[in-house]
């Protein structure tokens, strides 16, 4: 067990390091120039020589030393300085993170609820047309552009029904529509996998046995089938967490909210590579850590896997 944990943790660290290195190299190749974007404005009246000095200030001794310095910084929690604002990247991230964390966690919970409702309703319904209709809902959800969904929601709930104020409103009112926008596309893969997993469990021989003993349909679904269907669902749920950060780029832009997504958009526009590097590494870290957690949880949730893992 310990060996399994250590090897999985080692793999996770390796993937994270590789993600850092790959995005570092990629962002260093940049033909565009964030320093020029910021300082070439004639109003600043900087001579080419002064710009060269600024460049020397930002640049390190050699590419390799630069890389080692940045990597060491990431390991010790210092992500360098934003070229756009000059403030430490850590500060900008810390400012943006709580907003996005609130949005993303609420959206994730809602996505799970939507997915469970769709999958349960589909497997519980006896009419095949209803089942088919419910099972095609996830395909619809992943086909809807998130930005369009957000706009549609604003249009319906803010402008037509006037239920949610466009400007102002309480904290909860401000959160409802963005959370819904972010949750819908994320609920789709979870619902698909949960529904498929439930079907697979139903095909197992222990289900007719329980039914023969007189268990009700609901009891079978809730107590026996759903429990066994949790594992594959957990895997997908872990995979979707990284998408939450990507989804926040669109959601925060549409709803004009501050957060990691907005920070990302600003970083792309300003070619602010240190910020972009930090965001990419953050997203990769969330993804890798959550999936590590899922892998660790697996043998605990399903004792049958203990032998396989060791």
């Amino acid at each position, binding site marked *: 067990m310990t060996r399994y944990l250590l090897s999985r943790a080692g793999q996770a660290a390796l*993937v994270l390091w590789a993600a850092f290195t790959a995005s570092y190299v*990629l962002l260093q190749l*940049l033909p*565009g120039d964030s320093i020029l974007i910021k300082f070439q404005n004639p109003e600043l009246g900087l001579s080419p020589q002064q710009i060269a000095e600024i460049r020397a200030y930002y640049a390190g001794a050699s590419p390799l030393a630069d890389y080692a310095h940045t990597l060491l910084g990431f390991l010790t929690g210092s992500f360098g300085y934003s070229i756009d604002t000059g403030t430490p990247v850590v500060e900008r991230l810390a400012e943006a993170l709580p907003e996005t964390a609130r949005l993303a966690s609420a959206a994730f919970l809602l996505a799970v609820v939507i997915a469970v409702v769709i999958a349960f309703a589909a497997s519980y319904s006896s009419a095949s047309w209803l089942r088919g209709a419910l099972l095609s809902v996830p*395909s619809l959800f*992943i*086909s809807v*552009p*998130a930005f369009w969904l957000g706009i549609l929601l604003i249009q319906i709930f803010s402008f037509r029904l006037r239920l949610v104020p466009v400007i102002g409103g309480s904290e909860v009112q401000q959160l409802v529509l963005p959370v819904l926008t972010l949750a819908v596309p994320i609920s789709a893969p979870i619902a698909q996998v949960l529904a498929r997993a439930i079907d697979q469990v139903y*095909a197992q021989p222990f289900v007719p046995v329980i039914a023969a003993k007189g268990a009700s349909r609901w009891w079978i679904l809730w107590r026996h089938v759903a429990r066994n269907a949790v594992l594959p669902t957990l895997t997908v749920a872990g995979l979707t967490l990284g998408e939450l950060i990507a989804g926040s780029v669109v959601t925060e832009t549409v709803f004009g909210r501050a957060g990691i997504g907005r920070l990302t958009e600003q970083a792309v526009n300003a070619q602010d590579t240190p910020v972009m590097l930090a965001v990419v590494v953050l997203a990769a870290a969330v993804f890798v850590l959550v999936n590590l957690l899922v892998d660790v949880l697996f043998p605990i949730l399903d004792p049958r896997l203990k032998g396989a893992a060791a």
Partner: protein
Amino acid sequence: MTGASVPGAGGVGSGGVPVPARVARRPRGRVPVGLVVAWLVVGLVLLWAVVPGLFTAYDPIAGVPAEKLRPPGAGHLFGTDAVGRDVFARVVHGSVHSLSGALVAVGVGLLLGTLLGLLAGAAGGVADAAVMRVVDVLLSVPGLLLALTVIILLGPGTVNVAIAVGIGSVAAFARLARAEVVRVRRTDYVEAAFGSGGRFGAVLWRHVLPNSLGPVVALAALQFGAAILAISTLGFLGYGAEPPTPEWGLLIAEGRNYLATSWWLTTLPGAVVVAVVLAAGRISRSIGRERG
């Protein structure tokens, strides 16, 4: 289907459990209405891209200021925008940008991904492990962030956005292609081909590749829809085509300023995007069922 169902968005299908379950089998001879509609939608949009003039007489760029912000009606199917341009004409003329972008994106993902997967699956050993670690890294960064990183690198623009989206889908193609190649590699006919003196490359090309492609083609159809979605998202964020161009995402972004008064500017182009992406997904599922 041997366990390799088409993964949903974001390369979901992991777990490796065989999938018998309740697969809905269509009775023989009945027409799959959904599939026919899906092909009709894709065909129509393809025609829009090739011969837009057949579907609309209006100019997508030059508007008639006197007819601004008209709601949908007989004259203007999708209404008109703030400078009096016919929205339907803009959607029709915009299809070429979205479709060609999606084609480039799928091409990049399919080519790079299948190549990586083929090499990894056929070579095995260290090369396999190395390629799959690269795929792990690619999978660990969400597609949109990966695309944005590539856009920082290449700069905005229609082609760059398409390439960025394509690179985001390389990992999914590589993983699926590798799984298929590993499966086909173990079959008797491949062993026989090697046994009868076939060279490595030749056997790969003649036997392994054609027999591994079924699920990959299904994924390509799915990714085509996903690419249209991603391209319109990046267009909406302002990294794609320049403003007068009627790109779908940009179209919706421009309509945002008239949300309170003119619902048609955002709703109708978005509905077209949803229809096309849904259709691509439906077609992908039918390919997966037939060939997988």
